[in-house]
């Protein structure tokens, strides 16, 4: 405030922008480029979300982020009577066929925007639809920029949005990595996500260890598929949670960069600088939001956002205060964005790179997070007989991940219960909860509109062409040496539905059923 001139960075030793990047991946961090304020949104029909996308673009945004509804995330069509009724368009946008993806991006130049698609189990179908929209609107595939989450491993560990068993799912992921490496050099084919692991109840150290393990597992899978590590590693990115234990979170982010850089260099033989840099998106901890006195969540989110920024994140989503109750209202989402802007423009924390570097406590915490995460990595290496990928498969099969997460979640809950851990408004300081809050409600007419849309598409398409395209998908699924991307693109172009394509794949791969372990 007083205008004291400050240097871009203080301290000595490996500086920000220098291996092993503990202090950040760029020399001047936010002084050279502020983090991206990426807010995740989407509900209703594709046409509704298209309107919202155009609003974002009109206001100078270039990044579009897509939230799909539950049926779409699980590979089920909107007209699936058993699984989809009541869930269509509720938690995100419904995309059944290419027609919906065309509506979603109508009048938007896909060569000029960057699109993030948060989808995992049926990610190959969503990417194929996106490519088809680009092809059909004359946008070259090399110009497509964006990220598809496609982190299937954490689905078995935490978020549970899987369709097929782990090994065939990893085959799909590696096919997508091969395809994008060859044809879409600006596309990020996997966003390795600790966020959901943490939301499911893990500790910060488990989030870090499990996520990095998954990252190394994708590296091993891609190397086994014949890709050179430096050809794809620079397009792997991460997605972490920022919870309330302030210094622990900052230590976690710093440790993530250090471990990724050292292991990529020493164990996986990466040589390009960009392969060694752990770039990550951060979202504040949805699970920390309380339904009680929801307004106080604004303070929680601001503090968690600050931890993400002091931890050196490349982009940030701040949760809306009413999200413990429902999807955010526009006002709550705006307050969340404004909180980031306060951190960015008022606090001065963006002026100096890694301002906490050199603090005895922060350095100790960074080392401690590293030690605990590396312990997890070694455990998985042992489980997998020298392979992290095999260790991760084994940990999924024997319930090690879900068990560890459930134990941590229960420990946390017991601490809240017996009062050793205070959650303001929940087990202490409970006065003042007036309960009154305007909540967003999604009406049933979205589902009706989508059902009508899907029926029209099915009516208009050439059923024989759909059958042939699905047969080709099934045959390719049966042959592990042929890439699945091209036949899936053909199938979406024939207006095969996401559910039909996933059913065809499930016919070959089977469906994953989790063992119910408490």
């Amino acid at each position: 405030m007083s205008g004291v001139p400050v240097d871009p960075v203080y301290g000595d030793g490996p500086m920000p922008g220098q291996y092993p990047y503990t202090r950040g991946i760029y020399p001047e961090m936010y002084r050279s480029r502020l983090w991206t304020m990426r807010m995740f949104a989407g509900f209703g029909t594709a046409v509704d979300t298209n309107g919202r996308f155009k609003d974002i673009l009109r206001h100078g945004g270039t990044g579009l982020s897509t939230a799909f509804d539950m049926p779409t995330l699980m590979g089920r069509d909107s007209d699936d009577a058993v699984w989809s009724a009541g869930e269509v368009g509720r938690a995100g946008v419904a995309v059944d066929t290419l027609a919906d993806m065309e509506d979603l991006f109508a009048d938007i130049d896909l060569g000029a925007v960057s699109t993030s698609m948060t989808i995992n189990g049926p990610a190959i179908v969503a990417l194929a639809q996106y490519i088809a929209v680009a092809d059909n609107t004359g946008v070259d595939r090399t110009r497509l920029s964006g990220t598809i989450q496609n982190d299937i491993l954490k689905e078995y560990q935490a978020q549970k949005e899987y369709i097929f068993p782990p090994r065939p799912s990893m085959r799909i992921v590696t096919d997508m990595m091969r395809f994008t490496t060859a044809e879409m050099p600006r596309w990020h084919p996997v966003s390795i996500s600790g966020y959901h692991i943490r939301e499911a109840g893990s500790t910060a150290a488990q989030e870090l260890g499990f996520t990095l393990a998954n990252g190394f597992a994708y590296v091993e899978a891609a190397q086994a598929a014949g890709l050179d590590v430096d050809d794809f590693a620079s397009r792997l990115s991460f997605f972490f949670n920022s919870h309330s234990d302030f210094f622990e979170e900052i230590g976690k982010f710093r440790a993530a960069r250090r471990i990724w850089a050292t292991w990529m260099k020493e164990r996986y033989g990466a040589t390009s600088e960009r392969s060694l840099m752990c770039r990550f998106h951060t979202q504040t901890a949805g699970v920390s939001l309380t339904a009680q006195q929801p307004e106080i969540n604004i303070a929680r989110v601001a503090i968690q956002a600050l931890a993400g920024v002091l931890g050196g994140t490349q982009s940030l989503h701040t949760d809306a205060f009413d999200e413990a109750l429902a999807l955010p209202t526009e006002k709550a989402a705006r307050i969340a964005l404004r909180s980031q802007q306060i951190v960015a423009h008022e606090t001065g924390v963006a002026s100096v790179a890694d301002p906490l570097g050199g603090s005895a406590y922060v350095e100790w915490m960074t080392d401690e997070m590293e030690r605990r995460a590396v312990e997890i990595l070694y455990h998985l290496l042992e489980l997998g007989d020298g392979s992290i990928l095999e260790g991760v498969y084994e940990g999924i099969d024997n319930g090690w991940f879900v068990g560890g997460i459930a134990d941590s979640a229960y420990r946390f809950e017991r601490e809240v219960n017996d009062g050793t851990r205070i959650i303001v408004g929940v087990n202490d300081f409970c006065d003042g909860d007036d309960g009154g809050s305007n909540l967003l409600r999604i009406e049933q007419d979205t589902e009706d509109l989508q059902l009508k849309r899907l029926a029209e598409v099915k009516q208009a398409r050439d059923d024989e062409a759909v059958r042939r395209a699905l047969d080709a998908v099934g045959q390719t699924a049966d042959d592990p040496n042929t890439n699945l991307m091209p036949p899936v693109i053909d199938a979406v172009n024939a207006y095969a539905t996401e559910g039909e394509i996933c059913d065809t794949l499930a016919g070959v791969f089977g469906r994953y059923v989790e063992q119910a372990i408490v």
Partner: protein
Amino acid sequence: MMTESQGEGVGGREAPIRVVLAKLGLDGHDRGLKVVARMLRDAGMEVIYLGLRQTTESVIAAVEQEDADVIGLSMHNAGHLALAPRILQALADSGLDVPVVIGGIVPEADLYTLKELGISAVLHPGASAVEVAEAVRSSLSARRAGH
């Protein structure tokens, strides 16, 4: 010879309450359901944990097979107003008189509707172990007292 303590009912050691826990629909958030399962076990109840992606049919089948006393359903993605009537109808169709407790994110405004439909209790995030066990016990005793 049967002693009083072996007899059923008053003064006897009652069989533990058997609770079927499940999540209907596609949502995969199972943190809360798993924590509740452990809370109920710690409270001396028997938990039949069905886990994710159950249908009304699979829940009803489990209640019949396991002779369950209470059903606990976890809700996350605002599907409660669609899912609650379905399970209650299925229970009625099967002639089962088993109380249903819902846990999860349920807006205040829907509580009345759910009670009217016949849901016995709704537990919110942050409910303590004592509150969770009490909701199950009182749902069951209210149901039994009603006969």
